[in-house]
């Protein structure tokens, strides 16, 4: 699944580790989500959306 996480993070000049701290996940999880290797759980997707004050569908694109 494609997503805009890397772009949103870069806009705020956060490192992956800083974002991981805010989301209470590992840096590897942030990296795996950004690179599309791992699709986050629904609770994590909601957390990401809340953090960036956006809707889930504005961040994640299932590409259908």
């Amino acid at each position, binding site marked *: 699944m494609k997503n805009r996480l890397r772009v949103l993070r870069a806009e705020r000049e956060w490192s992956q*580790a800083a974002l*991981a701290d805010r989301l*209470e*996940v*590992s*840096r*590897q*999880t942030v*990296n*795996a989500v950004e*690179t599309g*290797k*791992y699709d*986050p*759980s629904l609770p*994590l997707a909601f957390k990401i959306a809340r953090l960036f004050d956006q809707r889930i569908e504005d961040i994640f694109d299932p590409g259908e």
Partner: protein
Amino acid sequence: MDETRRIGGWWQHVWSHSATPTDRRNKLRFLAWVFAWMAAFLLVTWILRSDSPPTGATAWLLALAPNVLGIIAALSYVRFLRDADELVRRIQLEGLAIGFGIGAVFGIGYQLAERAGAPEIATGDVVAVMAIAWGLGQLVAAWRYR
């Protein structure tokens, strides 16, 4: 992302199983119980194989005692999984699937091989293969999500 950084991320996965403090704490707790279990197993094995081993109820109690530590270790692993970072949980799940799969195929397959003439092995050997495959499975899964 360059390859060095990718390998670095994978290596961090392997050794720290990701970086959340909760994961590190729970993993250390699990490993501590596993080491205690193994130490108790070796100690009891040494006692039961000694020149004058205990007999009767004492021998049975000694033989069963390490299992208590084994159960505690298993419960601490469950706790580690429940509290784990979600990617760590995924990696563990894939590692367990690979470990159990290889262990089951090896255990069942070797029964047939024994009938065909292969040397007999102990149940503990199958468990060892399963544990090694579990570890390798974690490496493979961590590599996949590096």
